[in-house]
């Protein structure tokens, strides 16, 4: 029960999926919870209408167009990452885009929700690369179950998610909460044509409902997972925030946190936040959970400096902000000779994971091959007209390329590198005086070896499909999978949080999210972050 000496039992910084899970779990157990969010609340209908009415629409193909097309708001105290908010340094531009609104980045995620496989937790031991986790798959398995129920995961039971076409992998003690959606014609056709070349089809587990789930209707094939599911069939963090508020949690929106305060004994005593009018506010709690996304969480720790903590909070190891990772990738467009029709049903489902695990990880990174299933029309039409194609040929070309142009992409496993990092800008600040993030990023020859190996696979796919390669992009495509900036480990000297996601330096503060991942695998990390968040919430219930 809340002690009047504190404003809350637990303060959660960040209202995305991770903070939402922790906040909702604690609120349901009767704990007094305050959740802070830098950005505003958003309304699904308004976002959908803004999207429909936008002259420049964001798509995976033009994601590099900064400032263009996101229907989510950009406010002076919580600027959008689609504008010039993020600053880039280093040889590779880390142009990620997360959402600073209530509910967080899952509003626009594709909703892939994968478990890691057992070998992913010990890649240093097995392959001499990257870093082992202090915990293993068995430690997380039951939390994966719980996270899948929390997020409502749809998946294919009995599938070999390690991509070898074998028996069920990873081991599961519970079936998927919802059975897989129907596959589209394209997925079936690709499965048939690529299987002969040894590519084992794997259907992605994801957060789109295949039966009514809580308040969520069944996925209706709107093909609009990014930027927004118009009907709320796809999970997003606002659903957990709603649940937390229904159980008495207090949500403070438009309230960017700019300082975490610690006592001499190491315990966190309070957090400070601003309102858009620049007024400053202080809140106290028994426990604190930092869940502000891998970039903002690290930045907040680094700017929370004091005489006692000159390097910032939770940073005695100097690892805060370092080891920034992403599944930096490549892509290839190809034109098949028969109609395939990408764009039916959800925006993604079929992947190839032949290179997810194996002894090769000594030499090149694991990777995932995916085929995009987005309606491609809008991206091609302008180009046809610019080329002077008009008359009946224009419709014929739109139809042909809509039916036959496929976009394949690869996500590679990165290595944690100390120099790849988030730092607070010394020269640029938002409207309430908080430094904006600076992102330094690079890749190594290990990534280059993966790129070369991956290109071989993409070319083989083109061959099997009898397709013409239209274009290839190997320029380090950002996959918006932020990991590593507050990594987990047993040794306080080289990690930020312990195996429970508790900061080594501050007994009453946890970090929730994918930033605690010491290694990244090649798979979308959200479910792993969610499983760890469920685990944090259960630990807090024992202590608070």
């Amino acid at each position, binding site marked *: 029960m809340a002690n009047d000496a504190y404003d809350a039992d637990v303060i959660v910084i960040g209202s995305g999926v991770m903070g939402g899970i922790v906040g909702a779990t604690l609120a349901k157990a009767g704990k007094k919870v305050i959740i802070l969010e830098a950005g505003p609340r958003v309304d699904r209908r308004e976002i959908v209408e803004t999207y429909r009415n936008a002259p420049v629409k964001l798509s995976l193909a033009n994601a590099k167009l900064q400032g*263009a097309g996101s229907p989510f708001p950009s406010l002076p105290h919580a600027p959008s990452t689609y504008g010039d908010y993020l600053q880039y340094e280093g040889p590779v531009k880390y142009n990620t885009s997360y959402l600073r609104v209530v509910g967080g980045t899952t509003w626009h995620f594709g909703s892939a929700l994968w478990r890691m496989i057992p070998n992913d937790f010990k890649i240093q031991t097995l392959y001499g690369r990257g870093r082992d986790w202090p915990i293993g798959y068995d430690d997380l398995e039951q939390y994966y179950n719980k996270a899948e129920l929390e997020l409502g995961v749809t998946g294919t039971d009995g599938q070999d998610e390690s991509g070898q076409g074998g028996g069920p992998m990873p081991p599961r003690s519970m079936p998927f909460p919802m059975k897989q959606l*129907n*596959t*589209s014609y394209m997925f079936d056709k690709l499965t048939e044509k690529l299987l002969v070349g040894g590519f084992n089809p794997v259907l992605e587990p994801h957060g789109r409902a295949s039966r009514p789930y809580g308040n969520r209707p*069944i996925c209706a094939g709107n093909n609009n997972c990014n930027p927004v599911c118009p009907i709320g069939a796809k999970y997003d963090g606002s659903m957990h925030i709603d649940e937390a508020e229904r159980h008495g949690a207090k949500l403070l929106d438009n309230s960017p946190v700019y300082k975490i305060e610690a006592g001499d004994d190491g315990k966190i005593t309070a957090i400070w936040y601003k309102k858009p009018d620049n007024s400053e506010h202080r809140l106290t709690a028994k426990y604190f959970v930092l869940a502000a996304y891998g970039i903002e969480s690290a930045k907040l720790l680094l700017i929370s400096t004091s005489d006692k903590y000159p390097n910032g909070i939770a940073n005695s190891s100097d690892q805060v902000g370092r080891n920034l990772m992403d599944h930096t990738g490549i892509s290839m467009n190809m034109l098949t000779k028969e109609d395939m029709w990408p764009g*039916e049903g959800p925006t993604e489902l079929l992947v190839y994971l032949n290179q997810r695990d194996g002894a090769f990880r000594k030499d090149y990174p694991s990777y995932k091959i995916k085929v995009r299933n987005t309606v491609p029309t809008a991206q091609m*039409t302008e180009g046809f007209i610019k080329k002077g194609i008009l008359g*009946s040929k224009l419709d014929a070309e739109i139809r042909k390329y809509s039916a036959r142009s496929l976009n394949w992409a690869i996500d590679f496993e990165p290595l944690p590198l100390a120099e790849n990092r988030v730092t607070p800008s010394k020269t640029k600040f938002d409207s309430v005086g908080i430094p904006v993030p600076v992102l330094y990023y690079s890749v190594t020859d290990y990534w280059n070896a993966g790129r070369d190996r991956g290109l071989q696979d993409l070319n083989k796919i083109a061959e099997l499909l009898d397709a013409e390669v239209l274009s290839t992009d190997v320029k380090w495509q950002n996959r918006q999978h932020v990991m590593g900036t507050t990594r987990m480990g047993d040794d306080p000297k080289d990690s930020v949080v312990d195996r429970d996601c508790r900061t080594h330096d501050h007994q009453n503060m946890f970090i929730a999210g994918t930033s605690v991942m010491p290694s990244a695998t090649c798979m979308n990390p959200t479910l792993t972050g969610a499983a760890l968040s469920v685990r944090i919430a259960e630990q807090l219930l024992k202590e608070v």
Partner: protein
Amino acid sequence: MPIDTHNSGSLTGLPLHRRDLLRATVAVGGLAVLSSLAAPLSAAAADNDVQDFTQLSEFLTGYKLDPVLGGRFLTALAKRNATLKADMAALQQVIKQSGVANMDGFLALKADPALMKTATKIVSAWYLGVVGEPEDAELITYAESLMYRPTKGILTIPSYGPGPNAWGPKPDSKI
């Protein structure tokens, strides 16, 4: 015949809107009779421009088009091009004189680049649903953009999905 006191303002018993008249007028092939009856002179002149534009657009795109959208496209295009009316007139003149039946016939003429530029701007607007360059782009329509017509019934216009489980079998390639 009893007098319907609730609808005494209209001959048809239904309120008559200018946009309905506009649609009806274009539908009967450009006769200006109805609009001159129902609207003040300046509005009628504007309606004539919209009809001209919509009819030209129908020739250029090969689709039956909504004159209400036509009016909005015309306004947006004219805002960015002071000579649009003259450009359109020049284009119409060549089309009429050549006697070609459709856009493919016109393309075969290999017309003057200035005429092609006018034609392309109009086609681009209707296909993309957008007028202007990225800095000042203006959306006129999303779901009615002509670029979605060639795949209508097969692919969804994103965010207007077909409903649960509406995919799987081979899409009808005859559409």
